[in-house]
């Protein structure tokens, strides 16, 4: 309790109402070890405020959490390599930069290779404590960056690659990528014709492909569970070699969702089974996050305009059923329900 009128030292803050019993990510009343990095006044704010991301941007949220966690895990010794994309564009509008860390943007498809080069230089110049994180969106990772990504995995270069997956090429105007889910409307898979939106039977699962390279660590994460995201990044930084984290990040603009729904959507993606949360080491799954309250896919889809053609007076029950089947297959494959 603070007496009124008394000035407060910087390290103390007026205590607002926090439920000490929750794991709300900003909770500072938790034990140090259970507190999120973001709840720490000493966090590095690697992606500082002032960037130009949209309201409700899942990627900005994910990147901030991920990089600060990586910084804490390495005693602030991180170099970041960024692919072209939303994150790169909104974080570095010339002449400003919101990065507080050494950061390089090269091209669209080469973040993994540039990161490999940085890691090699650090090794050869004796900077063994400085670590490398590569970042890219789904386009820059699953499509154009795929060759370099696989090369980095195959060589087991000492890089943590983080993919922020908002399921389309958002920065260029919402075009389809190989991470775009079936039926989603994008500028190149319009909601017209016999099979509106993206078609079934396409797409690739990069976390599984990463596992097929038998790299030390692969994980999926979501901005719905930021403790988990920080935990996974921290864990990844405790290891060496090629590591991959695939983070699901809703994009209000591209998905046609309310900016305030970003976390809710991310959570629904997890709870429907459409975005399984798991970890793998050396090609074998070592852990998964069980679904607490299974939700039907409709609950998730109907909040996004990119799926609106599935609903309305004549709902597309057949395709909705196929999406549900995909979700159920994930639940079975990854053991997401007891």
């Amino acid at each position, binding site marked *: 309790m603070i007496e009124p009128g008394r000035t407060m030292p910087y390290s103390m803050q007026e205590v607002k109402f926090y439920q000490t019993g929750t794991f709300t990510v900003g909770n500072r009343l938790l034990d140090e070890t259970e507190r999120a990095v973001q709840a720490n006044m000493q966090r590095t704010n690697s992606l500082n405020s002032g960037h130009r991301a949209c309201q409700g941007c899942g990627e900005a949220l994910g990147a901030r959490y991920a990089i600060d966690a990586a910084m804490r895990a390495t005693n602030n010794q991180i*170099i970041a390599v960024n692919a072209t994309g939303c994150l790169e564009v909104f974080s570095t509008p010339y002449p400003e930069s919101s990065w507080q860390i*050494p950061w390089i943007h*090269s091209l669209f498809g080469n973040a993994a290779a540039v990161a*490999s080069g940085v890691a090699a230089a650090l090794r050869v110049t004796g900077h063994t404590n400085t670590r490398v994180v590569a970042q890219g969106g789904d386009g820059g990772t699953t499509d154009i960056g795929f060759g370099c990504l696989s090369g980095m995995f195959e060589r087991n270069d000492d890089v943590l690659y983080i993919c922020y997956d908002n399921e389309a090429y958002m920065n260029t105007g919402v075009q389809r990528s190989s991470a775009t889910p079936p039926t989603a409307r994008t500028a190149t898979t319009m909601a017209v014709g016999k099979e509106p939106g993206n078609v079934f039977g396409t797409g690739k699962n990069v976390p599984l492909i990463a596992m097929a390279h038998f790299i030390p660590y692969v994980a999926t994460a979501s901005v719905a569970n930021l403790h988990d995201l920080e935990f996974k990044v921290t864990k990844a930084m405790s290891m060496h070699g090629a590591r991959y984290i695939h983070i699901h990040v809703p994009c209000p603009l591209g998905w046609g969702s309310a900016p305030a729904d970003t976390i809710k959507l991310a959570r629904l993606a997890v709870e429907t089974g459409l975005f399984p949360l798991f970890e793998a080491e050396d090609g074998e799954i070592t852990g998964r996050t069980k679904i607490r309250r299974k939700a039907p896919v409709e609950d998730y889809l109907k909040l996004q305009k990119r799926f609106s053609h599935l609903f309305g007076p004549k709902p597309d029950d057949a395709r909705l059923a196929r999406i549900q089947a995909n979700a159920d297959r994930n639940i079975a494959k990854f053991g997401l329900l007891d």
Partner: protein
Amino acid sequence: MLKQTEGSHAVAEAIALCRPQVICAYPITPQTHIVEGVGEMVKDGTLVNCEFINVESEFAAMSVAIGASAAGARTYTATSSQGLLFMAEAVYNAAGLGLPIVMTIGNRAIGAPINIWNDHSDSMSMRDAGWIQLFAVTNQEALDLHIQAFRLAEELSCPVMVCMDGFILTHAYDRVDIPGQADVDAYLPPFQPRQILDPADPVTIGALVGPEAFTEVRYLGHHKQLRALSLIPKLASEFATRFGRDSGGLIREYRTEDAETIVVALGSVIGTVQDVVDELRESGERIGAISICSFRPFPVAVLREALQAAKRVVVLEKCLAVGLGGIVSDGVRKSLSGIQLKGYTVIAGLGGRAITVTSLRQLFRDAIADELEQVTFLDLNAEVVSHELEREAQARRTGPTAEAILRRMGTVASQIG
């Protein structure tokens, strides 16, 4: 130390002497022996403090080089032809970011048709990317230029490509003088980057630059190349003092003092040209030759000075601006702006066709007699060409051009030249 060795191997030894820290490359004929040579030296411990990375494509090679150079390591790679094109985006990126990467180009033709032999089309495709481009005439010069290249690149913070003719130089055994480590160390100090990714002093490299500043950034790159016009001769002169031989520089003149006809070319063909020049000089012709070593920056002023007293210039080039004619000729023409003399472009050696003394002798005689076309394709098989054109005029579905021509020419293996 004098050695009789393969050009690629000589270059590999020169690279090793430059104390590279990160080397990454992807195999492509005819540069493979260079990278294999360096790779072996790293693996067997001859070359220490060097990371050798086997990348999955040329695009990855230049990307790894970008990362390594930005993080403060002296970086090297090599490629040719299709590989250079595959990394094109990254080549421009390296120059735009001002990273002092050194790359060897084992000059090879670009397909289609696929062709593994020498010409200059690959380097020419990247001539405006912002890299410095140096062309070697001999394997000695090739190895020397790499040492100068690292020094040049790092002083300017500009990437440099050293171009050497594929097979003709890369795979030829020649006598070379390999410098000693002490001399190279004295000439090439440790890398001091202008910019470096360092947690102790964070910087943002590669930000988006809009209309308000892009022109200025580009201008500074242009200005850098103009500065190179004085730095290149300076470093070549320093090299000559320390190592005792002329290598590099902007251009090299051969018997041009009183020449009425001057032949201009790049790379190894100059050797053959010099032999023919000597022959024609014997019979009283006033003819000379100029080899351009620095193609980028293009040595406009010194070329102008060297050519201005001549009556005619013959530009002999191993590349083609399709539909237009010469590429090197364009630069030569710029140098001659305002000066009246006859200019001839000769496209020769494309796809590895041998440029012979016999053909050059006749060509130069024709030039001296001003009986040359504006643009000549040396040793063009006119009969094959007209037959193909006739064939194509007669039907629609005439099949792939290259295959039709090869069929007409008969088995290649039975031919010598």
